């Protein structure tokens, strides 16, 4: 038993140290990397507590996706654009400090009440084993007791996604939607590609035998003499 406690303290210590690194690092990328380290240690603590699913979900969702996206944004933003990353105005600092204190108090209260009460929840290790493991336990709990919150969260995320799209590229969304409406198909091609470029219908078609199928739904016009297609190009007036 002692060794597990030791491992726990080791992991917790590294996690806290890394969390401190998140706040203290000068470079935002270093902050993000510290956060990753912290998350991994938390995941390891989950493993020690025999909650493998939670651990893996933590890694996939937080480390594998969210922090990667944070890094993505950090790399896109030039560092000189972040003059107030550490400075900030006194008011902002004070508010941040207060909010941090409030969060700490809340977490402490939650932990303290729980350990003071000493009452485990309804999912004791025996109950978890009875349904076949903690994946099954989580699944049952989420999709029965917490069905409404889950659906509400899903809706919220969907709204957020659409909002983000419109905020990021309003003009592009319109453009893409128009293309999608017209084509009504999924195309790998470039949006300003061939699909939008049609030869004008009333063009004089090349004479028989001059068209040679060349593959890719294209044909080449084979000019035999130098007089052809000098006044009028082989595909007439183009339009973009």
């Amino acid at each position, binding site marked *: 038993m002692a060794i597990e406690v030791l491992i726990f303290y080791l992991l917790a210590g590294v996690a806290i140290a890394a969390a401190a690194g998140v706040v203290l690092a000068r470079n935002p990328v270093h902050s993000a990397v510290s956060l990753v380290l912290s998350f991994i240690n938390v995941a390891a603590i989950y493993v020690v507590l025999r909650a493998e699913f939670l651990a893996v979900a933590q890694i996939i969702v937080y480390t594998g996706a969210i922090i990667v996206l944070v890094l993505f944004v950090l790399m896109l933003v030039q560092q000189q654009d972040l003059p107030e990353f550490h400075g900030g105005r006194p008011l902002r600092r004070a508010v941040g400090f207060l909010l941090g204190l409030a969060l700490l108090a809340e977490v402490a209260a939650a932990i303290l009440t729980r350990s003071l009460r000493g009452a485990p929840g309804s999912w004791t290790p025996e109950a978890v084993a009875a349904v076949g493991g903690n994946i099954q336990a989580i699944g049952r709990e989420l999709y029965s007791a917490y069905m409404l919150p889950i659906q509400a969260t899903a809706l919220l995320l969907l709204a957020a996604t659409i909002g983000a799209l419109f905020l990021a590229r309003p003009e592009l969304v319109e453009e893409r939607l128009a293309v999608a409406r017209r084509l009504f198909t999924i195309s790998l091609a470039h949006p300003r590609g061939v699909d939008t470029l049609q030869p004008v219908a009333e063009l004089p078609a090349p004479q028989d035998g001059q068209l*040679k199928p*060349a593959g890719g739904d*294209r044909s080449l*016009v084979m000019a035999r003499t130098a007089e052809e*297609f000098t006044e009028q190009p*082989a595909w007439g007036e183009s339009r973009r």
Partner: protein
Amino acid sequence: MIDFTQATPVLLSEERQITETRRELVLNMGPQHPSTHGVLRVRLTLEGETVIACDPVIGYLHRGVEKLGESHRYAQIVPWTDRTDYVAAPSNNLGYVLAVEKLCGIEAPERAQYWRMIMAELARIASHLVWLGTHALDIGALSVSLYTFRDRELILDIFEKFCGARLTTNMMEIGGFSREIPPELPGMVRDFCRYFPKAIREYEDLLTENPIWLARTKGVGIVEPEVAINYSLTGACLRGSGVNYDVRKAMPYLLYDRIDFEVPLGTHGDVYDRYLVRVEEMRQSVRIIEQCLDQVPADGPLMAYESNYVIPPHETVMTTAEDMQRHFIWVIKGFSPPKGEVYHAVEHSKGELGYYIVSDGSPIPYRMRIRSPDFVNLQSLPYMAQGAMLADVVALIGTIDIVLGSVDR
């Protein structure tokens, strides 16, 4: 239509204007980059991966061939022309030699003209093979480049058999060829013509219907015909846009008017059309070579009749005093064409290659100007690249088919 009075690099549509709120990334592509085909440098301004401005910077391989041409005798310049576009050296030789012959008013014998055509078409195929391989490699198709370079070896073998050199052949001479055609050469060329269509099918199997290839090339880098003409494009870049201008057809030099061949024209003007046009041109080149082989006389003179413009044949130099004297003068002093200026263009594999020579009557050209197709074609890159993505720029550099030796001269 675009307002051409504006500076070229910034050709942006309304919503793509550079604003303060958008951050751009300036990326220096080249001069040492695997897919700029040498020492081209492109200064790209990117927003994410989208190109919002593109400024090609050239001159890293500038050797001053035009200045060198003003201090060498006419026959000494032929090797320099090899080194401008080193993947199609015989075509460069041909353009220069024809310009000098036009200046002097001489003409090579029929047999030499046929062999010049054969060699020029072989050079065209070799150049297109290099283009196809590198273009496909740029877009990521690894194997095609090795297939094309494998088949290019056959052409280089033919060159080697013909003149002893493989890359910078220094093949054409003013007035024809001074050395006899090796007897096994026609057989080699025939074998190549029999083999090569199969090789083209092999490349096409890998690329033409490949969905990724189509997605990468279709609709990318569209050049409308009127814009293509306005940008002075020539060669496959112009024909891919559907304008029929092939120097071999429009103003036949050598004996191209006796040959039956067709000029492929594109119908959309994008990267894919230029690809199709060049592949079809390789087929037409094979057709031309076969007809030339059928029509070429088995023997006959290869050098123009002796005047003081051409080097006398080797045997008579050794046997007659007069020719030895002429040979001496030709080699030491060179020959003096009449005063005047000529411009002669040939259809190089990349477009119209023109030589503009001004003669002041001395054995050294007063001015030799090389109108290289790649140099002129390359300036359409900013036009093609507007709104394209970073990966498209690579495809566009490939589709223009540049050789930096020829761009920078």
